[in-house]
Each structure stands twice: as C-alpha cells, then as structure tokens.
C-alpha cells in the first residue's frame, strides 16, 4: 500500500472553467448573476418582469438552465431579450463549462447584464461556481419561512435574496413569517440584500431594479 497526498479541490476542473468565465466577463466588463431557487419559486417570472420593466435602461441577456424543455427560454424570448437555453439532461445544476459555451453565443457586447437562471434546486447549484459576480437566491412565500435554516449553503453564499409571491401573504392564506426568513438569512449572511417582491403584480420590484443598476455601475 502506498499513500499519496493530493490536497486538491474536487471541483477544480469546474473552477478552471469558472475562472475562464470570470476573465471573459471581466474583459467585456459585464455583470453576471447566477439565480438559484427551488422549482416554481418564480425565477422566470421575475426575469420576464425585470427585462420588460427595465427595457429602456438595462439590456439583459439570459442563460436558461433546465433539465429538459425550452419552455423558459421561450418565455424569455417573448420579451425580445437574447436567451440561450442549456438542457442538462438530468443533471441538477449548471456547470461552468456549459455557461462558458453559452456566454460565447450571447451578443455580450450589446448587453448590460447577464442573468443565469440555474436549474430549479436549492442545494446542488450552490456548490458549482459559474464565474458569476454573485448568486441571487429566490424564495417564494409558499415554500415556507424555514428554508434559510434548512438550506443554509445558498443563503450563506448569496449576494441577494428575493422573497417572491408576497401578494399571497394578504388574506392570511400562508403562514410565511417574513421576519423569521429574513432574520435567519441575515444570521447566515450579514451582508445579504433582501427584497420582498411580487413578480406577478410588481410590488417591491423597484428596490431590486435599483440594486441591479447600482451593481452594474459599481462594476
């Protein structure tokens, strides 16, 4: 028997491609955000509203990650924003090499912001760095306020948290405690920006837009 010290990051191959993406985005000076959430939290609706509302100010390009279908890419393309669909064919997350290929297909020069909509999954995508400037986590009120504590990885790593579907809180149909969700998220991540929104009726979206504009300017 012979023991060999390796001491290597297991995801170093992914990190290598992520670094290429960092360089690519740096050269083009474009902001890139990686949006992560459970399936059905409203990522695509947030995107379509954001793209439409910001049309005259911020040009957005989208990389859509889904296990199957191009349903989401079709929804995005109805806004006229450029979109590249990646089908992972079973994989539960996007990897940096897939994003690298997609970035080269987007008209990056003509964009101000690139948003990657990751595969709907609150766990796996948070481990795979894509070379983005920041991760955005979306939590919809219907999922429950205990998610930051139950899935700490993504809440600890994200730059911003969008609590979506707050229109459902009216009428007392949900027991979602915004205070609890935000307190728990901030315990894990003191600097996380939190936006309570309804992508359906537009409530709270302006603060998110302001943050996007500031983040682009700060690049």
């Amino acid at each position, binding site marked *: *028997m012979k*023991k*060999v010290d390796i001491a290597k990051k297991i995801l170093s*191959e*992914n990190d290598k491609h992520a670094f290429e993406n960092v360089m690519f985005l740096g050269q083009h000076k474009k902001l890139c955000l990686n949006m992560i959430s459970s399936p059905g939290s409203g990522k695509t609706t947030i995107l379509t509203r954001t793209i439409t509302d910001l049309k005259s100010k911020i040009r957005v390009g989208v990389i859509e990650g889904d296990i199957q279908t191009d349903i989401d890419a079709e929804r995005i393309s109805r806004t006229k924003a450029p979109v590249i669909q990646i089908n992972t064919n079973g*994989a539960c*997350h996007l990897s940096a090499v897939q994003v690298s290929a997609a970035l080269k297909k987007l008209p990056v020069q003509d964009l101000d912001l690139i948003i990657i909509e990751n595969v709907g999954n609150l*766990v796996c995508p948070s481990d795979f760095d894509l070379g983005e400037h920041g991760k955005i986590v979306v939590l919809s009120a219907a999922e429950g306020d205990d998610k930051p504590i139950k899935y*700490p990885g993504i809440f600890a790593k994200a730059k911003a948290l969008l609590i979506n579907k707050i229109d459902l809180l009216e009428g007392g149909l949900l027991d979602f405690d915004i205070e609890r969700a935000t307190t728990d998220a901030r315990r894990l991540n003191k600097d996380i920006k939190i936006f309570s929104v309804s992508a359906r009726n537009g409530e709270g979206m302006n603060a998110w837009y302001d943050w996007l504009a500031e983040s682009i300017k700060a690049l």
Partner: protein
Amino acid sequence: MHEAGIAQSLLAIISEEAARQNARPISAKISCGTLSGVNDEALRFAAEAIAKDTPCEGIKLEIEHKPLQAQCRDCNITFDVELSQPRCSACGGENFKLLPDAGLILEEVEFQTD
C-alpha cells in the same frame, strides 16, 4: 443529487493520479465543508456507479465533514457554527462573521503496491 457531479470530478482526479502512479487506487480520503451539503450515502452510491468497469472500481471513500466556523465580532473567539441555532458559543450573541467554508477536497489516495 449533485453528488453525481462531485463523484465524476473526484474519480477523474483519482484516475489521473492512478495513471501517474501506475497503481490501482484502493481508497480515498475526502473532506467536505458544511455548506457543500454532501450526503455520504449519495456520494458513495454515485462513485460506485461511475467507477464500475474502470480502474477505480471498488474504491473505498473515507468522508470527513468539517464544521463551518465563525468568528464572534464581540468576544473575538472562533467557534463551530450550529446551523440550526447560529450563535456564538461563548457569549451567545449573533454578531459574528462566517469564515470561509472548507470546501470539497480530495486529501489523499491509497494505492495498491505489489
């Protein structure tokens, strides 16, 4: 089940080292940070499936989980974070800074020698 992707990358590194050593890998020691959320059973299952019919077939994985640490801003101590109840272990306060998570590391591989 991101363990499948992790297992694939893990076995690629081990296979590369096995070719360099020209020896069969018997076991590997891995350390996982808390935020990686690795499930041991899923990782072993994925590795077993991917390693089948390759030189890594039958490799044993020894998986160590490293606690997430934080530094208290008030009393300055470093402590292991209990994620369900994140508080400073000394003062009980919530004013702390998370330290970088340990990540996913392949520490060492044991090879069979003749």
